[in-house]
């Protein structure tokens, strides 16, 4: 993914990438990246959490306004706790 960002930037597109492994992003130096403290496979945090996902997307988009780079910022908000388990209300 980081390599794609480099090449699309060369083609004239401004890119901003979610970073799931910060050290990997530090090594690849993509133009703009937002490190998130989320589980691998959940780049926008948590399912069915629209307002939380919106905050992540806003933070990622805000990097497009950076004047110079590379930019690597942290999104330091943990995802919300998820719903209930199938046992809730049963087996007490």
């Amino acid at each position, binding site marked *: 993914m980081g390599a794609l960002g480099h090449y699309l930037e060369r083609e004239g597109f401004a890119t901003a990438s979610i970073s799931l492994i910060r050290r*990997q992003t530090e090594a690849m130096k993509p133009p703009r990246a937002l490190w998130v403290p989320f589980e*691998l496979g959940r780049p926008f945090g948590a*399912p069915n959490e629209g307002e939380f996902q919106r905050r992540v*997307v806003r933070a*990622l988009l805000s990097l497009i306004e950076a004047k110079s780079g590379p930019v690597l910022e942290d999104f330091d908000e943990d995802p919300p706790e998820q719903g209930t388990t199938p046992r809730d209300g049963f087996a007490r």
Partner: protein
Amino acid sequence: MFNTETIEMARWEELPDYERDYLAGMKLPVFEETAWSPGGPVAERRVALISTAGIERRGDKPYPFFSGEFQVIPTDADSSELVMSHLSPNFDRTGFQQDVNVVLPLDRLRELEADGELGSVAKYHYAFMGGSRPEDMIAHVPELANLLRADNVDTVLMCPV
């Protein structure tokens, strides 16, 4: 095309052993310089998403194995049409099963566009198969760039899994 090196990963202590073993063996492209295209106010940008989750529509011709090719996702694709074809024991898939937006936030972009925070959402978005070799994916960048230009896209959000 580029050199590779093995690197140490962050949040090492939070990953299971098998994940650490996998990540420790990954070879990553190294770029001496970072390419840069100027951005600008978000409210004036036209945005497309690119995922490496192997997302495609049910009924699309499946990703050719080891080709580095990408699939095209219309922005108005219903979430029930989309499947994640990327198989790996190294990341969570349950979030996507519940809500496509946790991987490909199409609904969130549309909301920000409707609120005037975002200029516009592209007509098409794109997905590569995760685990593809970078050099294979990069071979398709010229075609991808032409499609993005035809859609007047100036901004791309990269969405790994």
